[in-house]
């Protein structure tokens, strides 16, 4: 909008503007409450007209999310949020499309759609609430549950190997891979803003506690005692430091990562790996740390590269075709090929 035609400035939006009149029906204490709060707090800063936000979800506890946002929303069917969101974005690329999904919704029933969404790179912000369990169906193991998990459907322990979500996303050519934690309000807000700013599909995995069926699954990353050694907070361009006193770091021994002590005089910051979010090999290493017991789990932007979005190519192709062939003339098209006239 140019200055001389400027419409009266819309009043600034607040968190309340994004809160719907619906009663939130998650279990008291569910990690989803925090995620909802961080989204509602962050959105007013995005300077996007409220009507342009669309929340799409599949099925599961997390997928009730759209009902609680006072934006356009669509609670779809199990595993298909990815494709409904694709249709929305294809029809109107101006919209800011947010996809709320869970580990079962996106990695099990919707696994096929997830990988294709990521490889196409539509400009959609995907928040995957990972609680490593099926909550809404009352406690079966999920594709991200650890092997041996005892649940209602695996009373003798699950046999499935768990998916590594960021590694899966990387394998599917995701252009943005991030991770955050439900209760880490500040970090989560930052990551939501980062996902929003990214052009292309943002894959944001959010560790989310299910206090009914998988309680304390992520305590390692929130407890003061363990947080320091278990959480590696990534910062682009910065050495990989962690530990309660920022006393530990990660360096490469050959091509393998190694945890080193920065206080014994042997290693300094200069020896550590410097995070480069555009480095795919580094990203692969970081994804792999997810299930390594001797390493901290990475949080933050694991990987991010620039790549043209799918929908912009779709409309570019249309523009190019019009430029090359002229704007389609339907009357002419109907009469194309061999025609004859009967008098």
């Amino acid at each position: 909008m140019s200055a001389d035609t400027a419409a009266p400035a819309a009043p600034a939006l607040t968190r309340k503007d994004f809160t719907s009149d619906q009663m939130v029906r998650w279990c008291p204490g569910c990690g989803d409450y925090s995620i909802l709060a961080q989204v509602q707090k962050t959105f007013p800063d995005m300077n996007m007209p409220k009507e342009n936000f669309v929340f799409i979800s599949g099925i599961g506890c997390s997928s009730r999310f759209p009902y609680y946002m006072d934006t356009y929303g669509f609670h779809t069917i199990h595993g298909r949020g990815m494709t409904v969101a694709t249709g929305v974005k294809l029809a109107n690329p101006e919209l800011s499309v947010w996809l709320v999904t869970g580990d079962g919704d996106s990695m099990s029933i919707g696994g096929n759609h997830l990988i294709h969404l990521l490889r196409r790179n539509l400009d959609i912000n995907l928040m995957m609430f990972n609680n490593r369990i099926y909550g809404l169906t009352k406690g079966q193991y999920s594709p991200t549950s650890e092997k041996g998990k005892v649940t209602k459907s695996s009373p003798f322990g699950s046999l499935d190997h768990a998916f590594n979500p960021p590694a899966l996303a990387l394998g599917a050519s995701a252009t943005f891979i991030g991770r955050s934690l439900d209760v880490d309000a500040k970090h989560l807000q930052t990551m939501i803003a980062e996902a929003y700013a990214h052009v292309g599909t943002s894959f944001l995995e959010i560790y989310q506690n299910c206090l009914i069926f998988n309680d304390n699954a992520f305590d390692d990353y929130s407890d003061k005692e363990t947080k320091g050694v278990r959480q590696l907070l990534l910062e682009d361009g910065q050495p990989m430091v962690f530990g309660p006193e920022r006393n530990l770091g990660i360096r490469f021994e050959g091509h393998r990562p190694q945890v080193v002590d920065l206080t014994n005089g042997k290693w300094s910051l200069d020896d550590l790996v410097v995070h480069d979010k555009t480095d795919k090999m580094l990203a692969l290493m970081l994804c792999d740390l997810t299930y390594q017991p001797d390493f901290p789990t990475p949080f933050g932007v694991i990987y991010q590269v620039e790549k043209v979005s799918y929908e912009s190519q779709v409309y570019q192709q249309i523009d190019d075709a019009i430029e090359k062939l002229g704007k389609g003339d339907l009357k002419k098209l109907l009469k194309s090929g061999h025609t004859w006239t009967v008098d």
Partner: protein
Amino acid sequence: MSETKKGVRKNVESIEQVTIRFAGDSGDGMQLTGSQFTETTAMMGNDLATLPDYPAEIRAPAGSLAGVSSFQLQFASKSIQTPGDEPDVLVAMNPAALKVHLPELRKNGLVIANSANFTKRNLSLAGWDSNPLEDDKVMGEYRLVQVDMTRLVTSAVEDLKLPNKIVARSTNMFALGILYWLYGRSLDPTKDFIKDKFKKRPEIVEANIRALDAGFNYGDTIEAISTSYVVAKAEMAPGVYRNIMGNQALALGLLAAAHKSGLQLVYSGYPITPASDILHMLASYKNFGVVTFQAEDEIAAVTATIGAAFAGALAITGTSGPGLALKGEGLGLAITTELPLVVINVQRGGPSTGLPTKTEQSDLNQAMYGRNGESPMVVLAAATASDCFMMAFEACRIALEHMVPVLLLSDSYIGSGSEPWLIPDLDTIPEIKNRKVSAGGEDFSAFQIASEEAMARSWAVPGTPGLEHRIGGLEKDIITGNVNYDAHNHQAMTDRRQKKVDVLANYFPLAEVLGEETGDLLILGWGSTFGAIRTATLKLQEQGHRVSHLHLRHLNPFPRNLGELLLKFPKILVPELNNGQLVKIIRGEFLTDAQPYNKMQGRPFVPSEIERKALTILKETSNVS
């Protein structure tokens, strides 16, 4: 009438209608040959209808029975509705083609065979013990012209020094040339086609044109064919015509709907025979602003369509039977969220993967009932290839004006079959309105019915200020659209979804009967059986029988006068290419003694089958009374 050319005296006879069939190996170019004859014949002003028939395998083993590909065409100086009953002429490019198709040729019909391919190996592949062309027991009832097309084409192009492969691939043009001579067709349209298609390969252009000329001259010269035929122009309504296949007509109908509604067309599909053509065509119309999306699977295609409909586009998906099965859950979501979209099902033989390239009407039950819960859906069916245009347009109009998903049935027969199409005047086609709203009052609720008459809610699309709302697959409050599990609300919503379909009968045209509105027998059909039923009915009426034809394009809901019309006939016959799906609905709905007539062979009815069946019923009736 006779003429003299090159010393051979030839008769020219005038005939009203002819059915010809080209048959050969999948690699022999029979589909191209048939479609060239079709184009030329259409331009010469005959009415026509075609039936391409090809194997599901891209290249079945050469010379095998499984690899036979054929193309049948009827053309006439009068109005016709089917590709014909028994062919008058069979072009058999190899022994397998002869084996498969000879039994269907009419007695005393003409066989034109490429004798070069009747080798020992090919004969054995086709299961002939000896050469049938030399066997009077096989060929005795037919007239035979056997010609070594391969040798004649080879000598015609000898100086071009082309590889054998290219020469062999030109023999279909020789066969086409003979038939062009036989029916007095012009060679020019095909020559123009060849020049355009192979413009980068002048040697191929030359070879094909020489083969075509050689075939034409062969017909003119040999004594074995003493007569050529003239089929006069058919009487047709004035206007500009082109030949069109059903899938082409569907694509154009969707484009016209986008044009007349002013909406962005978003078509999502996953490749599936025989519906892929629609995706191909729309993908080529990028300069018309069409968005096409080749999804990762059928479920993705339908749910992306739902997303596009939510966001305000003219959203379409197309598929065939197995794909529709996968889309079932998605369609339930479209029904419960009351979003305007169109699903096209170009039916094929089932169940499961079934007969991918053959025709059937066996998805009617799936269209009507193939979803969980009470999920009534609007179902339409196109009757002919050219009818696909207006039915596609109509499906879009209903969806947008009534905020309802619409399922349009076509099938392989009309999808890939073709006929002349009177090109409509775009200016006379009315605009399509939609239910978009730009603002709502204080009490605006997205899910509230905005028009009781049309049973349509408003279409408040994302991006519209102040109308933010949420919808979903959970049961919705009848006013606000928020989640509501209340017992009475669910009853009211179930009733509302049914009523949304039912009220459309008030908007659909009344059913019309061909013939008298009362009589001894009504033949009731839907979809692609139109041509066969109409032809049979006309013939029965000519014979003095009191038989009428009623054809349904609207299957859910039915036209509102259907019950009343059915009551006027003591007997009702329902021919269907399934095991009796419409007939059961009709019996259930109207308590009439409708009788099924079913065929499950992957092929359309021929008129004589329906005629015979009708005569049997008429006889039973007269015996009783």
